[in-house]
C-alpha cells in the first residue's frame, strides 16, 4: 500500500549474550525521532550510548510530518538536515478556507535571512531513516534493534534493564536511562508511573494518498468545506507526491466504518473532483490526549518526548517538542557524566521542558477548542470569527487552526542570568532561543553554524574582546559590521551574549566582562 520501502535494520546478537557485559553511561529506549537524535547529540560530546528498540524498522505511517526550523537546526549539527530539506517539501505559505471560499493566506516566515525555512514537510519514516543511517555510522552509538525492555530496576547509582532478544534475554546496566519510547512508553509502564491529563473525544481521520496529478504545495485548512460540510479538513503535502488529508469526523464517528477505503474514496472524490487519481498510502483514525508526567527525571531514569508529555497534533508540537527535549537534555547529561556539573543540573531539564510542554499543551488545547468547540457559546464565537475574517483583518489573527511550533520561551529558568542592562530594544533575552542570521564577509555564512559545541560568547563590534580570560571550552564569535545579525540582536559595539549549548540565550550584557561571563557560565551549569 505504501510507496515507501521499509528497510529492516540488522539485528546483531548483543555482546552481553556472549558473556561480555559492561556498564553503559547512557541507555536510550526507543528508536523514533527523539532517541537517535539524543544519541547523536551525546556522541557529539563524546558520550557513548546504546539505543534499544523492540522493532527493526522506522515509523509505520507518516505520523509526524511537519519538521520545524528549530528541529532542522538541531539535526543540521549532525549533518542530516540538508538531506531532509532536499527530500521534503518546504512550505511557508498557508491558506484558510471557509465553506468554498479562501478567507486569507498566511506566511510563517515573513523575514528572509535564516538558513532553514519555517517548516519542511517530511514523513517521519524518512526522518528516522536518515537519523538511523547517521547513528549506524557513528562509532559511539550502538543501535540494538529487536531488543525489547521487559524490566527496569532503578537504584541510587544507575538502572538495570532486562532485555529480550531473538537470542534470549540479558541484563544491561546503565548509569542513566533515557526513555524516548513514545506515548505508550514501556519504561513508564514498567515503573508504574502515572500519566495525568485530558482525553479529547473528537475523532479524526488521516488519509495519506499519492495524488497522481498536480499538487498544492501550501498548507490548506477548511472550515465547513462543501466536500465535508459539517467539520474541518486539513491538507498537507509531503515528499513523494504524498498528501495528508486530515478529516475531522466528530465524536460519534465509527472508526471501522470511516477507515473503509470506499468511504475514504467518497470523501476524496468530492474533494479532488471527478478527474483526480490517487493511491492510498496510510490510513489512521485517531483521537488524542494531552498529558504530562509530574517529573521528567525520576532518579536515574529520564523521560523525553511523547513518553513524558503528549499534545494534540494541531501545531506540530509533538515531534518538534521531543527534539527540543533531547537538545536540552544532551549537553546537561554529558556534563553530569564527566563530572563537570552536579546531577542537580538535570532538574533544570525537568523544569524547563515541563514549562515548554505546558506552553505546547496550552497552545494545542486552544487550537483544539477552536477547531472542535466544546459548547454552544464557544462555537458561536468560533463561527463569528470565521465569518468576520474576510472583511475584518483583525479576526484573521483569532483563527486558530494550529499555532505552529516555534521554540518555547524558558523565562525565569534558574540557569539563566536576568538582564542587568535595561536598554534592550530587541533581540532574544535570557531564556529565549537564538535567532539565525547571515554572517561573514559576503553574508554567505550562518550565525548558527559559527556556534561552538558547548557555550558560545557572541560579541558585536569591530574590536576583539579580551577573550583569553574566559572559561575553557567556551567558543568566541565576533560579529563585525552592520548586518542583519547586529539588527536582530540589538548588537551595538560591545554587546555580548552568552549562548547555551542548546542555542538558548543564558545572559547578555552591553559590555564585555569576563568575570560576569564566567559567573553566568557557572550558573548555567549548576555550578553557581
Amino acid at each position, binding site marked *: 500500500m505504501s510507496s515507501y520501502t521499509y528497510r529492516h535494520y540488522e539485528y546483531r546478537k548483543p555482546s552481553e549474550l556472549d558473556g561480555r557485559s559492561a556498564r553503559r553511561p547512557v541507555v536510550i529506549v526507543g528508536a523514533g525521532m527523539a532517541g537517535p537524535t539524543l544519541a547523536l547529540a551525546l556522541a557529539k560530546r563524546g558520550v557513548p550510548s546504546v539505543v534499544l528498540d523492540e522493532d527493526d524498522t522506522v515509523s509505520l505511517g507518516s505520523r509526524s510530518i511537519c519538521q520545524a526550523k528549530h528541529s532542522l537546526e538541531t539535526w543540521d549539527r549532525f549533518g542530516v538536515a540538508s538531506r531532509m530539506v532536499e527530500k521534503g517539501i518546504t512550505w511557508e505559505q498557508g491558506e484558510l478556507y471557509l465553506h468554498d471560499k479562501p478567507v486569507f493566506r498566511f506566511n510563517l516566515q515573513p523575514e528572509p535571512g535564516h538558513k532553514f525555512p519555517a517548516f519542511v514537510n517530511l514523513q517521519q519514516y524518512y526522518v528516522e531513516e536518515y537519523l538511523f543511517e547517521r547513528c549506524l555510522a557513528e562509532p559511539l552509538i550502538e543501535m540494538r534493534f529487536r531488543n525489547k525492555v521487559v524490566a527496569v530496576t532503578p537504584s541510587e547509582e544507575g538502572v538495570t534493564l532486562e532485555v529480550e532478544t531473538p537470542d534470549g534475554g540479558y541484563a544491561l546496566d546503565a548509569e542513566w536511562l533515557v526513555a524516548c519510547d513514545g506515548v505508550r512508553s514501556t519504561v513508564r509502564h514498567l515503573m508504574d508511573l502515572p500519566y495525568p491529563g485530558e482525553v479529547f473525544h473528537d475523532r479524526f481521520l488521516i488519509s495519506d494518498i499519492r495524488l497522481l496529478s498536480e499538487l498544492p504545495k501550501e498548507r490548506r485548512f477548511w472550515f465547513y468545506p462543501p466536500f465535508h460540510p459539517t467539520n474541518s479538513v486539513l491538507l498537507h503535502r509531503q515528499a513523494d507526491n504524498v498528501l495528508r488529508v486530515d478529516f475531522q469526523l466528530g465524536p460519534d464517528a465509527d472508526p471501522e466504518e470511516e477507515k473503509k477505503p470506499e468511504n475514504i474514496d467518497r470523501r476524496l472524490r468530492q474533494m479532488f473532483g471527478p478527474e483526480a487519481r490517487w493511491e492510498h498510502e496510510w490510513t489512521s483514525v485517531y483521537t488524542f490526549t494531552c498529558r504530562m508526567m509530574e517529573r521528567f527525571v525520576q532518579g536515574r531514569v529520564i523521560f523525553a518526548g511523547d513518553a513524558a508529555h503528549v499534545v494534540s497534533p494541531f501545531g506540530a508540537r509533538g515531534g518538534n517538542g521531543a527534539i527540543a527535549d533531547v537538545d536540552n537534555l544532551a549537553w546537561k547529561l554529558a556534563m553530569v557524566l564527566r563530572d563537570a556539573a552536579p546531577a542537580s543540573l538535570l532538574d533544570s531539564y525537568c523544569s524547563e521542558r515541563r514549562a515548554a510542554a505546558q506552553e505546547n499543551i496550552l497552545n494545542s488545547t486552544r487550537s483544539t477548542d477552536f477547531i472542535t468547540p466544546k459548547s*454552544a457559546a464557544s462555537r458561536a464565537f468560533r463561527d463569528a470569527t470565521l465569518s468576520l475574517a474576510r472583511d475584518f483583518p483583525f479576526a484573521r489573527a483569532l483563527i486558530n487552526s494550529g499555532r505552529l511550533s516555534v521554540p518555547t520561551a524558558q523565562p525565569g529558568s534558574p540557569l539563566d542570568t536576568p538582564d542587568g542592562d535595561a536598554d534592550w530594544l530587541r533581540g532574544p533575552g535570557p531564556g529565549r532561543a537564538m535567532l539565525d542570521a547571515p554572517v561573514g564577509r559576503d553574508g554567505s555564512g550562518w550565525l548558527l553554524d559559527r556556534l561552538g559545541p558547548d557555550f558560545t560568547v557572541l560579541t558585536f563590534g569591530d574590536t576583539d574582546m579580551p577573550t583569553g580570560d574566559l572559561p575553557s571550552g567556551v567558543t568566541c564569535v565576533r560579529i563585525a559590521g552592520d548586518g542583519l545579525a547586529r539588527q536582530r540582536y540589538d548588537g551595538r559595539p560591545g554587546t555580548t551574549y552568552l549562548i547555551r549549548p542548546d542555542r538558548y540565550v543564558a545572559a547578555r550584557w552591553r559590555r564585555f566582562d569576563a568575570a560576569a561571563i564566567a559567573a553566568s557560565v557557572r550558573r548555567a551549569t549548576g555550578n553557581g
Partner: protein
Amino acid sequence: MAEITTGALRRTLNLARPDDVYNAIVDAHRGLSDEQCRAFDARLILLLANHVGDEAVLHEALRAARETMEET
C-alpha cells in the same frame, strides 16, 4: 450590589444619546431567533473587543458582566 473597585473600565455614562444607542442594540436583534441572536452577539462582541483593544478594560468588563449575573 457588590463592591466593584474602580479600574480601567468606565462606569459612568459615556453616551450622548443613551436611549438611541440602547434601542439600536435591541433593534438590531429584531427578527432573529435565539440562536441567531447568539451568533449576532458574538460578532458584535468581537468587533467591539478589537476596537477597545485595552486588555485590562476587556478583562474588567468580562468580570463585571459575570459578577452582575451572579447577583441576580
